[in-house]
């Protein structure tokens, strides 16, 4: 019985994952979603957060930020802006980014800069949160 999803996670820098998995949990902008075999076709934006997938009873977690998730015909395609495996995250760097972004947000920023910085902050928060939870 091979009811597996074909998962591929790619970022502009490289292809992170190309595997057959049992389940994918992703952070959509409208809420987290879990995807199992025979999921209806869907296309959604992703926010910064934890994306995990289960394969043969093992769970692998990544922190992704921004991008899309598409499911068609049991193929799950994740186009993320950035993506890191949990064990690859550099805590110090994330903490520094977090502090920097917080400080910046208090200063005078144009709207675009504000959005950019806010994104950075969310990214840093997502990284740190997941580090602390695991």
């Amino acid at each position, binding site marked *: 019985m091979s009811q597996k999803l074909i998962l591929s996670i790619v970022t502009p820098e490289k292809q992170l994952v190309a595997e057959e998995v049992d389940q994918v949990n992703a952070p959509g902008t409208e809420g987290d979603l879990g995807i199992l075999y025979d999921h209806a076709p869907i*296309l959604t934006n992703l926010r910064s957060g934890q994306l995990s997938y289960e394969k043969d009873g093992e769970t692998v977690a990544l922190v992704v930020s921004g991008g899309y998730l598409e499911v068609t015909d049991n193929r799950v395609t994740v186009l993320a802006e950035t993506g890191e495996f949990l064990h690859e995250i550099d805590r110090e760097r994330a903490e520094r980014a977090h502090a920097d972004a917080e400080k910046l947000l208090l200063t005078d920023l144009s709207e675009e800069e504000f959005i950019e910085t806010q994104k950075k902050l969310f990214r840093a928060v997502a990284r740190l949160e997941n580090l602390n939870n695991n």
Partner: protein
Amino acid sequence: MPNLKEIKRRIQSVKNTQQITKAMKLVAASKLRKAQLAILEARPYAIKMMDVLNHLAARCNSDLHPLLDEREGNRHLFLLITSDKGLCGGFNGSLIRKMAKHLKDNAQNENSLIVAGKKGNDIFRNRPVTITEEIIGWTKDFDYLKAQSIGENLTTLFSEKKVDKVFMVYNEFKSVMQQEVVVEQLLPVVPENLAHKDDTFAVDYIYEPDEESILDELLKRYMTVEVYRAFLESSASEHGARMTAMDSASRNAGEMIEGLTLTYNKARQAYITKELIEIVNGAEALKG
């Protein structure tokens, strides 16, 4: 008789050149490895992106988004990606030739250029064509952010209706030995299977939040990714071309040195023979 000293000097000079070309070849090879890795890892993203976009656009209305807007008009903008440095064989030459031919063949259009790279700018500055922007020194540190700003720039020009079509002209990386000049339409975006809309799919497709906003974001990102990919392709091609060019230059220098050494030895022998004859002649004269 050729001057011995002169030949020796030339051999030395060719040897020096050969040393330089050899060094450049090695440098290009190591840069190529990095550039090649970058492009090979960036490609899957670009391809998947195109897939998602195609799926989505096939189910959406094409006049849903300004970047898909196919309009009449002949103001064409070309983004020409050349290198900053020379000594890379036919890399820039074939690119510029293709561009010039294209401009000539489509002279009835209102063509303008955005030229990246010093080499392309040097050439087209003196030609009767409008250059809207010069991007010089990109080869040093190109990253995703730069691609983004170039992409946004192009998007703005297009959506403000200052141009009707945007193309990219660059060298696509086929292999180390092979690059191919491609002219690619960037805007308006033409999704591949727009022609045969797949209506059966549309029924139960879920969009979060909704298809318009996804399409909007997707198209913006697609622009960045395409520009990013084109620049990476070009960079890998440049290093490949330089490596091949420098390799053959080193080989040619080697052949030249061989030839010159042969002439040198011949000349030296002739010189010794001549001297011997003189000595013998002198001795004969003394005897007599």
